């Protein structure tokens, strides 16, 4: 048998995990369509409810509180980041549980592949998927509703890419908890709802009580949403929002480190107690 080692082996494993994830998405196109459609539907709902509440002054009231009259772009940016966070937590966090349910987790863990490589491979698929979500959801909406901001989309996309790193960290953390506690779906639902509420998906976080804003400050989506709104709607640049990007970079370092450490700890514990094969 021919064996390869070093970076070639790592690249080979990453490529295999990446394509496995992509195949999964292409095999269930309905689920992917739902990911693309949901941000629009949620935005429509908020928009409709808002029009009802505010009547003819809805846009003016909205502008007073947010500084923009472009309601759809404002809301779709929040919606898209929320959905992207949802995809990452579900994919990276729940992937191992899926393997467990299919009975393939042991084979995966017995393969001569580093656990970190395994998790990074799952994340690579999500980079491709979330990029597509960005193009279809944010890109198309901005081109239609605010064509002047088209060139700002590249900067907004860079913010998203940086924001994905701490999100993967949260995914790693969640993957560890799933190995230990099982039943991940209800936890992902609560977690994603909490993320939506705390990170200002449809409103500025300043609307939340002060102590809640403190929690919001620890979540990467808060910065991604706010920065993307600043770039697309207020014509800010990456340079002018450097403070926020710095915080995002710190989170990009902290979350994966912390998430992977917890994952390793729980994985080690699970291997001792035999949790892998328990459902």
């Amino acid at each position: 048998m021919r064996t390869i080692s070093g970076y070639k082996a790592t690249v080979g494993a990453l490529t295999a995990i990446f394509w496995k994830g992509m195949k999964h998405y292409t095999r269930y196109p309905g689920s992917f369509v739902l990911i693309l459609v949901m941000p629009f539907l949620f935005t429509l709902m908020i928009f409709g409810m808002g029009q009802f509440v505010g009547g003819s002054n809805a846009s003016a009231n909205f502008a007073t509180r947010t500084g923009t009259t472009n309601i759809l772009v404002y809301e779709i940016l929040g919606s898209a980041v929320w959905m992207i966070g949802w995809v990452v937590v579900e994919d990276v966090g729940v992937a191992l549980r899926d393997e467990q349910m299919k009975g393939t987790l042991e084979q995966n863990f017995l393969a001569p592949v580093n656990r970190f490589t395994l998790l990074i491979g799952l994340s690579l698929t999500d980079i491709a998927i979330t990029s597509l979500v960005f193009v279809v959801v944010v890109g198309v909406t901005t081109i239609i509703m605010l064509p002047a901001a088209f060139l700002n989309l590249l900067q907004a996309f860079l913010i998203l890419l940086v924001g994905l790193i701490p999100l993967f960290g949260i995914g790693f953390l969640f993957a560890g908890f799933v190995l230990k506690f099982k039943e991940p779906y209800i936890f992902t639902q609560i977690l994603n709802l909490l993320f939506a509420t705390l990170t200002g998906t449809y409103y500025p976080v300043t609307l939340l009580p002060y102590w809640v804003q403190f929690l919001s400050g620890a979540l990467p989506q808060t910065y991604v949403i706010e920065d993307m709104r600043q770039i697309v709607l207020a014509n800010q640049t990456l340079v002018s929002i450097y403070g926020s990007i710095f915080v995002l970079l710190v989170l990009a370092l902290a979350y994966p480190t912390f998430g992977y450490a917890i994952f390793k700890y729980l994985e080690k514990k699970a291997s001792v107690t035999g949790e892998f094969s328990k459902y």
Partner: protein
Amino acid sequence: MNSQNTSPLLRFVAEFRAAFMKDLRSYVRYPAWMVGEFISTPLWFFFFALGVTLFAPTSLSSSLPQEGGMSFFFFGFVFIILFGTGMWGIGQTVRNEQMAGTLEQFFLTPASRVTLIIGRWARMFLTDALIIGYTTLLLYLIGGGFVTLNDPALFVFSLGLYELGLIGFGFLFAGLTMRIRSYNTISNLVFFGYMVLTGALFPISVIPVPFRYLCMIIPFTYFNDLVRHAALATPTILSGALEYAIAALLSVCMLAIGFVGFKKIEDEARMRGTIATS
């Protein structure tokens, strides 16, 4: 118990009780789901309510005195919970049994399929009522006001029409699970369509005219409208009596179509041998 020798009523009660208890046992076996449901359901409501405050003149609870203020959205939340029960509760009964590998046993019992599915619906209706009650209390405690019913008798009648229509709709969906693979995607899209197009969260008068006609051919638009009218005295889409007559007719038709559709799909699936394979 030998159900062959009992009266139809006793048989129905026994089957219903067994189906209800079976589902209740499955439900309490997963406490994380229970706790999660009680946390996440009200959280959806508060999340959307916060989003809407951006559009409000001063505060959400003080706006829209004629439309019921916060109570308007509260009922939207109730509709969403109830519709979800029809969609995933009744509709997914067959799929759940399929996934658990017990569908054949389920279909081979000398019990009515309809009663078994209704038993599951009853369990979910009970849980829904608990969640709605708990959220009402939570809303009151955080200062959102207390939800009161303008005409309780009319409310029960309107809710009855809604539930009849919903059960019929759920049965049709339960049948579809035997035919289609991408049930989850379709049910999610239908669910979102319900939220946007039936006046559940905002009146259909907000929707631009060409799309509003689409809303007006969906039966749930009238069910939602009448429940809200009975609870909050909001104006109805059509004249009151006419809308009640239409809603009553629609609910009976939906129930009949649901039962007939489910039976027909089941018979076809039996002939094709696809009951447990979709």
